C-alpha cells in the first residue's frame, strides 16, 4: 500500500499547497491521510479521487467551494493550463496598455501647467494604476475637475491641481488595495497558476466573502437575510458556552464517594463539579465616520442580529464624538426601523473621525464599563485625528479590561500606511472586510 508512485505524493503535496494558499488549513497528518486514502480507490476515476481528497482534506463546509475550484483547476490537462496562462498574460498586457494610455491622457490634461508642477506632485505609476482601475464615472469626474481648474486665477494652479488629483487617487488606492494584495499572489507563474481564494469561490457564495464596502444596493436584501442567519446561529453557539454557569453547583458523586470511603461510606465531605468561567461583557465601539459608514452599517446589522437573538452587547458609535446606541437595539423592532433610528438619532454618522475624543467621552461617561470582565470590540480603519493620544488612552483602558479586539476593514496588507501599529500595541487587530471575517472572528476570537 505504501509503495505508490512518487508522482502521487508530489501531486498531493502540490495540491495541498494550492489549498493552503487559498486559505484552507491543512495539516501534515491530513496530507498523509489523503495519501494513504488514494491507495484504496480507483485512481483513474476522477470522482473517486475528488471524493477521497475532499473527505480527508476539507473539514469545514465553508472550504468546499474553494476545494471544488482548486480541484478542477489542479487536475486540468496540460493544454487547459497553458490556455489559462495565456489568458493571464493577455490580461497583464492589456493592463499595461491601459496604464500607458492613462498616462498620456492625464499628461495632456496637465500640459498647460507642465512646468509649474513640482517633482513631488508628479503622478507616480501607482497613481496611474489607481486611475486606470477607477470606475469610468470616477475617471470622468477627475478629468472634469482638472479641466475646470484651467483659467482658475490661483497663484500656482498647477501645484494645486496636482495635489488635489493625487489626494483623490490616494484615497481611491486605499479602496482598491485588496485587489492589489491578491495580485501579488498571482504575479508569479511559478505558482503553477494564479491562486486567490476569491478566484475559486462559487458566485453564489461570493457575497459572504465580498468586501462590505463594495456591496451594491441590489444585494442588500440578500445580505440582510444572510446576516440574520449568521448572527442567529452565532448567538445560539455563544449562549451555549455559558448557559451552564447559571446552574447551581452540582455534586460530583464519584469524587464524593471516593472521598468518603474512609468514613465508611457516609458522605461527610461533599465534592462538587468545577465552576465555569463568568461570561464577559461585550462592548462595541464602532466607527461610523465618512470612510466607514457603509461598512459599519453591516457590522451594526450583525450586532443587531446578535442582540435580538439574546446576546447583550453594549454598543457605541463614534466619529467626531461618541454616542451610545444600545437602546436602539433594545427596542425590539425590525432592522430597517432600527437602522433608520440609528442614522436619525446619531449625530455621528458620516462625520470625520476623532477616536481620541470618543474615548475621552467614553471614559468620562461610561466609566463603569471599563472593568475586568469587559471585552472591547473596536471597529475602525484607524484613520483618525490625534491618533497618538487615542492610542495612549486606549492603552490605559486596555490594562483595565479583559481584552481589546480591533476589527479593521482595511486588509492587513494596507496597514503599514495607517496608524494601525500604534493601536496594535494594546489591541488584537484583525482584518475584517467581509461577513466571513466578521463571523469567524466573533466565533473564534471573542470570548462569550
Amino acid at each position, binding site marked *: 500500500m505504501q509503495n505508490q508512485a512518487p508522482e502521487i505524493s508530489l501531486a498531493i503535496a502540490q495540491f495541498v499547497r494550492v489549498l493552503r494558499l487559498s486559505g484552507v488549513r491543512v495539516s501534515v497528518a491530513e496530507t498523509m491521510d489523503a495519501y*494513504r486514502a488514494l491507495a*484504496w480507490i480507483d485512481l483513474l476515476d476522477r470522482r473517486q479521487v475528488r*471524493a*477521497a481528497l475532499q473527505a480527508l482534506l476539507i473539514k469545514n*463546509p465553508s472550504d468546499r467551494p474553494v476545494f471544488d475550484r482548486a480541484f478542477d483547476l489542479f487536475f486540468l490537462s496540460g493544454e487547459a493550463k497553458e490556455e489559462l496562462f495565456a489568458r493571464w498574460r493577455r490580461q497583464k498586457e492589456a493592463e499595461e496598455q491601459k496604464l500607458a494610455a492613462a498616462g498620456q491622457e492625464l499628461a495632456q490634461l496637465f500640459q498647460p501647467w507642465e512646468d509649474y508642477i513640482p517633482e513631488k506632485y508628479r503622478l507616480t505609476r501607482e497613481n496611474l494604476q489607481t486611475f486606470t482601475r477607477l470606475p469610468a464615472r470616477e475617471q470622468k469626474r477627475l478629468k472634469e475637475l482638472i479641466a475646470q481648474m484651467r483659467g482658475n486665477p490661483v497663484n500656482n494652479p498647477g501645484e494645486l491641481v496636482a495635489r488635489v488629483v493625487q489626494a483623490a487617487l490616494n484615497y481611491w488606492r486605499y479602496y482598491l488595495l485588496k485587489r492589489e494584495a491578491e495580485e501579488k499572489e498571482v504575479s508569479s507563474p511559478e505558482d503553477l497558476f494564479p491562486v486567490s481564494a476569491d478566484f475559486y469561490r462559487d458566485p453564489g457564495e461570493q457575497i459572504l466573502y465580498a468586501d462590505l464596502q463594495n456591496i451594491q444596493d441590489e444585494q442588500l436584501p440578500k445580505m440582510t*437575510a444572510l446576516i440574520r442567519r449568521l448572527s442567529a446561529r452565532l448567538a445560539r453557539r455563544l449562549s*451555549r458556552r455559558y448557559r*451552564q454557569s447559571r446552574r447551581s453547583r452540582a455534586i460530583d*458523586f464519584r469524587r464524593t464517594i471516593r472521598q468518603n470511603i474512609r468514613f465508611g461510606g457516609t458522605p461527610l465531605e461533599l465534592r462538587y463539579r468545577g465552576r465555569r468561567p463568568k461570561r464577559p461583557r461585550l462592548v462595541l465601539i464602532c466607527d461610523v465616520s465618512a470612510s466607514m459608514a457603509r461598512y459599519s452599517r453591516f457590522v451594526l446589522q450583525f450586532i443587531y442580529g446578535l442582540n435580538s437573538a439574546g446576546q447583550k452587547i453594549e454598543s457605541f458609535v463614534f466619529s467626531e464624538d461618541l454616542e451610545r446606541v444600545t437602546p436602539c437595539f433594545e427596542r425590539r423592532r425590525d432592522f430597517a426601523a432600527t437602522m433608520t433610528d440609528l442614522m436619525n438619532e446619531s449625530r455621528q454618522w458620516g462625520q470625520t473621525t476623532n477616536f481620541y475624543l470618543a474615548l475621552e467621552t467614553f471614559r468620562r461617561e461610561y466609566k463603569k464599563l471599563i472593568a475586568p470582565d469587559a471585552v472591547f470590540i473596536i471597529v475602525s480603519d484607524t484613520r483618525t485625528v490625534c491618533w497618538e493620544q487615542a492610542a495612549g488612552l486606549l492603552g490605559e483602558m486596555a490594562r483595565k479590561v479583559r481584552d481589546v479586539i480591533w476589527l479593521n476593514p482595511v486588509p492587513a496588507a494596507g496597514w503599514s500606511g495607517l496608524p494601525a501599529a500604534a493601536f496594535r500595541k494594546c489591541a488584537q487587530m484583525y482584518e475584517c472586510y467581509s461577513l466571513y471575517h466578521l463571523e469567524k472572528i466573533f*466565533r473564534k476570537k471573542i470570548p462569550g
Partner: protein
Amino acid sequence: MLDLSIPELHKALEREGYICDLEQAVTIYLALKLGKPLLVEGAPGVGKTEVGKVLSRVLQTGLIRLQCYEGLDENKALYEWNYQRQLLKIQVLKETGCAAVDETSLFGPEYLLERPLLKAIRADRRVVLLIDECDKVDEPFEAFLFELLSDFQVSIPELGTLTARQIPVVVLTSNGERELSDGLRRRCVYLYLDYPGVEKEVRILQARVPEAGEKLIRQIALVTGYLRSQAELKKRPSIAESLDWARALVALNAHCLTEENLHFTLNMLLKNQEDQDLVRSKIGLAALLNSCRENETGPQEAGRREACRAAGGCRRA
C-alpha cells in the same frame, strides 16, 4: 470485516435503504478502510444519524449509540459506579461487624455500570459506535472524546486500563451548533451532507414511501426543492420533513398535489408557523403548485433548476 469494494458498498447502502452518491460511498468506505472516525455534518434532518444506523446494518453488527446533550459527562457516557449498591454493601458490612471497609471490594466489576462508550470498547465484535450530535457536548467532554478516539483505551482508577478488543467503527454527527475543535476534525474522515437535489430526493422518497406513487413523489420533490431555494424561509425543509409530508399525503389518499391537500398538509413540510404564513401569504399555494407543474416537463425543468442553483438554492449534494 469489510471485504466489499466501493461499488459493492454503494449497492449495499442502497439495498439497506440509504440512498447516496458515489462520493458519499467513497467517503464512508475510506473511513472504514483507514480505521478513522467518520464525522458527518449537515443541516438538521438530512440523514446524518441514518449513516450510523445503516452502517451497522450493512456490516451486520451491533449499533451502540451515544446520544449527546448539553452537560453529558463521563458518568453517563463511559461508566459509573453503582452508588446505591456500594452503599448497600457498606451497610451490610457494617452490620456484620466489619470494622474497616476494604476499598477494593467496593470497586469490582459487579459495581460497574457500563455506558455506551465503555460498552463499545469492551464489545467482543467490532461494533458501530454512533456518537450522535456531538456538537452538543461541552468542550472538556469533547477533549475527553478526542482522547478516547485516539487510543480506544480508558483508565479507570479503580480497575486499571481497559483497551478495546476491537476498534469500533465510529460515526460522529454534528449540526454545527458548536464549532468542534480543529484537532477532532483533523482526526476524522469528513462527510458533509447537503440537501439532496430533486433526483436524489425522488429516489429517497421511492425507497422510504413507495406507496406515494411516482407522480406524487416527483411533485413532492419539486416543491420541496423549490421551497429550499427560498431565502426568506426560517428553516428549510429537510429530508425528514419531505418524508413526513409524503406520508401525510398518502394518508389522505392523494395521488397528486392539489391546492386543497397542500393546504391541509403544509404544516408537515414547514414546521415553523412563520414559514407557513410566508408561503401562504407571499408565495401563495397556487403559485407553489404551478411552479412544480411547470417544472415537470422537459427542458424547462433543467433551466429552472439551473436558476435555482445559481441563486444558491439547491447546491450539489
